């Protein structure tokens, strides 16, 4: 089932095009990685889907409906963003109490266990929380809301490594018990690489990649070997990056690598190695910049 469908989605702020003709779908019960550099349009895209802003042009459907001002559709969405502002009068327990009433699938027991895990002080003013603790509060809301569509926009700014691991573990465990559609937007790609089932890569407002992460892993390879044979091997493939050191070279290639191709590489003395998701994203984004 399709949770979100976007077609030709475009958002302009004055003469800045934040999103440029973006089309994709988000399916039920999957974890998506929404990746891209700063200013690539990730947050704008999530704001459009969650009805916090309206598109300049294009079609957008959330649970089959228009998201803007749509109470029914929006009550099934939670959007945890790094920049979330809280009223200065609120304490942590106020925020949790309000969230428990506003999200129909809220699990209070789960929320309380997360608060304990993250050592969140319930009686402290939200504005007096540290950067990391504010993030932990956002993560708690995002997980305990159990919304069928859950967005995490850089949810763990300032969170220490232990807390981040806690977040990943709790997310995976809860996802297994209560499957839903999760969109993770982050710069710490390697950390979430194992979680992400599908990659959406934005670059300067354009969607440059929309592919299952398994496919991407087999698609982008580092090939190391003698420079001349490497050039021959690279023909017919997209070269994302090239490094040369004396007679040896390393190129990052994008294409299909079946067993015959792998055998051929081996015979040519070329070492084929899959690159990490983070490296693939970096290469794909940099290549567009130089192109």
């Amino acid at each position, binding site marked *: 089932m399709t949770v979100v469908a976007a077609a030709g989605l475009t958002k302009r702020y004055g003469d800045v095009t934040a999103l440029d003709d973006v089309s994709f779908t988000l399916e039920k019960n999957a974890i998506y990685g929404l990746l891209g550099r700063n200013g690539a349009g990730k947050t704008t895209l999530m*704001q459009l889907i*969650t*009805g*916090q*802003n*309206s598109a300049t042009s294009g079609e957008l459907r959330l649970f089959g409906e228009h998201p803007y*001002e*749509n*109470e029914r559709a*929006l*009550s099934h*969405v*939670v*959007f945890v*963003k790094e920049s*979330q*502002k*809280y*009223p*200065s*009068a*609120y*304490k942590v327990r*106020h925020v949790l*109490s*309000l*969230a428990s*009433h*506003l*999200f129909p699938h809220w699990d209070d027991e789960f929320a309380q266990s997360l608060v304990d895990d993250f050592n969140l002080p319930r009686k402290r003013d939200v504005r007096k929380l540290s950067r990391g603790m504010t993030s932990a509060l956002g993560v708690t809301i995002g997980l305990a809301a159990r*919304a069928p569509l859950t967005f995490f926009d850089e949810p763990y700014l300032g969170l220490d490594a232990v807390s981040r691991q806690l977040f990943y573990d709790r997310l995976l465990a809860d996802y297994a018990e209560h499957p839903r559609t999760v969109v993770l937007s982050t710069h710490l790609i390697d950390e979430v690489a194992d979680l992400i089932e599908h990659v959406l890569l934005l670059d300067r407002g354009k969607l440059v990649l929309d592919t299952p992460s398994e496919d991407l892993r087999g698609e982008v390879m580092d090939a190391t070997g003698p420079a001349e044979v490497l050039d021959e091997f690279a023909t017919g493939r997209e070269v994302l990056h090239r490094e040369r050191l004396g007679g040896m070279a390393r190129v990052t290639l994008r294409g299909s690598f079946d067993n015959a191709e792998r055998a051929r590489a081996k015979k040519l003395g070329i070492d084929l190695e899959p690159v990490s998701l983070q490296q693939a994203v970096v290469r794909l984004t940099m290549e567009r910049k130089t192109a």
Partner: protein
Amino acid sequence: MKRILDVARMHTVAWVAQIAWPWGIMGISLAVNILIFASIDEASPGKTSTGGLSSLYIVTAIVAAVSISQVFPFALGMGVTRRTFYTATVLVNVVQALVYGVLLYLLNLIEGGTGGFGIGLHFFRVPYIDVSNGLLQILVYAVPFLFLNFLCIFAAVLLVRFGTNGLYAAGAAAILVFGLLGALITWQGWWGDIWHWLSTQHQASLLVGWPALIAALAAIGGMAAIRKANA
């Protein structure tokens, strides 16, 4: 309706800051006034009124403005629609004005019954707005809350929607419009007619009817402006 009440809780959940403080400040003002007037021996009858009650209205209006500038972005982040948020905000402000009106009326009765807290103080029985009819008195206390709160809410919505420049531009436009209007009235010599019109207005129209109408217009303006506001 349940959703609206859940959202309305956003304005009351931190009740110490959102509700108790305005009353606390007024209470302190009352205590200070009692002390001052008790220590003045020659306080002549009729001169023992104070403007201390205005503190309650001012602080309440500030809370209302903050409810837009701070609570609205939070509400949007929690998946609340602008329409629901604003409806809940109007509901909270109207109920609050009526409840505060009743409470002030009770305090008015207490003040009257105790001879102005034993020292002839007129803190709640403010001259001119002290009317004889109980129901009207409640409305006379309640409507200024609506008037101030909805004007402040409207200004805060302009701030959220159009930013600081937008708010200043609206303020400048208002000064210009009212300034030109004042100049026009002076030029045409209409002030006498206006004073005459005001003085012939019924007390209920002047203290309740007209301010309530302006409050309603501000509330509608806020509704229109918030529909396209983003956090």
